């Protein structure tokens, strides 16, 4: 029986790393992408995304100067693009931790090559997400009032509000993600320190490597720390996006007050995050020729997770509509009907198309292994998940209890500038990341090579 399983899984396992790789070639290929001179394409991308960052800074600067009224929010739809983008970005961020932590606990060998940039994606996306709750405050300079500190006023934050939980959840999430990411980086920074030929690179990587020597005692504590951090990160991710769900679910608004929101938001986060990881994986694999480390097997596995998450999302959408019909709440049912047929109907049907219909293509193994097809599916999922947050935030708010208060939301140029600027900020961080940090964890790939059968 066990031999049977071994025979079935072994060829599959072997496909996560091209067989011509040994320890030396792994170290060389990955560290060279950092240590070689800067390419022209990198400068181009860095400068173009830098221009976008300037747009973001300008949009935020004008917001601080003129006030939150430059956005399209009104007294009915008080949450607009800022909260949509906040939820979208934090959702993107969650998949990185799930890949590095959950798949680590599940001992999935295909996680190894992609976990470093998935984690980087998490940190950048969570940091960008963390900006939006501050930007959308009317008085952003007082955001530190959310922290419990002994002030001369003697007042404290209101711990019964999910928006306060949000602050703690995001801050904890960013800190723990950075620690987890940096822990995984230390042995790789030691490799860069030892391979670097310029004095400056040796000093900088040597300083960040903290004197890592790779001794048996080091590895013993390291493995423990990494394992337990992974075990902590999984419930942390679930809690972070559940809190985001509670921002809505603890309200009285029909369409928001659903007990389904916490798990449904967590799965949605995993869904959109995996879609983003697919986009990034395809881009980095082509740009840096990572074909030895990122194989069709990786894309295949991620596409399967995308499909599974899409089915759960479809179930959640169905259950929302069913419960509204099955329950006795007239407002809930009116919300559901207006969502599908009202002014925001196209966003709702677009969401269903992108999130439920399109990912069904992943049932086909040919689609899962076809890079262009998977890229299209992943991009559509990201658009669909943005529409989902748009439907939840704007559409629900626009039609609450009082018909005299029904109002539509029209985003202004500043809404769009902040949103596009946040994309540019993400890209800009990513350009810095691929230039200075090894994008594939070398020591973990070496261990994978060892597990798959050592070559020397």
């Amino acid at each position, binding site marked *: 029986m066990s031999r049977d399983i071994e025979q079935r899984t072994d060829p599959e396992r072997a496909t996560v790393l091209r067989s011509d790789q040994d320890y030396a070639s792994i170290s060389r290929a990955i560290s060279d992408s950092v240590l070689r001179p800067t390419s022209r394409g990198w400068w181009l991308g860095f400068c173009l995304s830098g221009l976008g960052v300037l747009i973001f800074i300008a949009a935020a600067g004008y917001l601080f100067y003129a006030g939150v009224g430059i956005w399209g929010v009104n007294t009915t739809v008080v949450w607009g693009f800022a909260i949509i983008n906040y939820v979208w970005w934090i959702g993107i961020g969650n998949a990185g931790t799930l890949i590095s932590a959950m798949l680590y606990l599940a001992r999935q060998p295909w996680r190894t090559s992609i976990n470093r940039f998935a984690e980087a994606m998490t940190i950048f996306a969570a940091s960008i997400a963390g900006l939006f709750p501050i930007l959308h405050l009317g008085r952003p300079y007082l955001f530190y009032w959310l922290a419990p500190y002994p002030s001369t006023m003697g007042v404290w934050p209101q711990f019964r509000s*999910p928006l306060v939980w949000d602050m703690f959840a995001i801050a904890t999430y960013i800190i723990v993600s950075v620690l987890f990411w940096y822990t995984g980086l230390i042995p790789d920074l030691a490799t860069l320190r030892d391979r670097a030929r310029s004095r400056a690179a040796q000093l900088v990587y040597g300083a960040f490597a903290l004197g890592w020597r*790779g001794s048996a005692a080091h590895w013993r504590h390291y*493995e*423990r720390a990494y394992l337990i*951090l992974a075990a*902590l990160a999984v419930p942390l991710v679930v809690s972070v996006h559940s809190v985001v769900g509670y921002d809505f679910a603890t309200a009285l608004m029909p369409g928001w007050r659903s007990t389904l929101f916490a798990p449904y938001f967590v799965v949605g986060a995993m869904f959109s995050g995996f879609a983003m990881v697919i986009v990034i994986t395809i881009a980095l694999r082509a740009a840096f020729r990572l074909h030895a480390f990122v194989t069709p097997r990786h894309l295949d596995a991620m596409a399967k997770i995308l499909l599974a998450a899409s089915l759960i999302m479809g179930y959640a959408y169905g259950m929302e509509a069913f419960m509204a019909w099955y329950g006795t709440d007239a407002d809930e049912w009116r919300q559901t009907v207006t969502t599908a047929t009202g002014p925001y109907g196209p966003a709702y049907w677009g969401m269903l198309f992108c999130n439920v219909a399109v990912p069904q293509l992943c049932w086909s193994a040919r689609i899962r292994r076809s890079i262009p097809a998977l890229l299209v599916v992943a991009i559509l999922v990201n658009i669909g998940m943005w529409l989902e947050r748009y439907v939840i935030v704007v559409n629900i708010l626009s039609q609450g209890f009082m018909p005299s208060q029904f109002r539509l939301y029209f985003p202004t140029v500043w809404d769009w500038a902040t949103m596009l600027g946040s994309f540019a900020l993400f890209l800009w961080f990513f350009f810095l990341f691929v230039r200075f940090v090894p994008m594939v964890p070398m020591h973990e790939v070496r261990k994978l090579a060892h597990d798959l059968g050592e070559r020397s």
Partner: protein
Amino acid sequence: MSPNPSLLAEFGTAGQFLDAIGRTRAAGYRRIGAYAPFAVPGLDEALDLPASRLPQWMLIFGIFGGASAFLLQAYLAAVDFPLNAGGRPYFSWPSFTLVTFEFTVLGAALAGFFGMLALNGLPRPYHPIFDATNFDRASQDRFFLMIDSDDPEFDPYSTRRFLDSLNPIAVTEVNREAG
């Protein structure tokens, strides 16, 4: 303090490396250092290292973080400045569980990261073993086994002969403080 330098043997595969550690321990050496470019499965067992104390530290700091967060919220909301927020009870403990959970994770994670560094004696940018020939490959593709000259079994000639008998790529000397 013996004036002899310690000896460092270099290996190309994890299999040879583990085998060499086993034979070194069988030969009676106890002060052995081992350096590898990744966490070699079975290395702890081969060296008979005690279990890491890190999990206990993480547990203690996790409980500390969670308990202090819960007590802080309960004290601030129910004792220090009780405020009727939406008719909720002052001690509305279900609302306090989220932040309690986040601080449990934060306490344990900080203890895990800084505890790992502390137990490993990091940061320590310079270490005498970095001066050893070819040691820069310990972070890339080579495995190193060191027998400390403090070891009671250590003898400059017979230990070198013993290391040569393990078929290493090379045997080099390390400044004795390398430890």
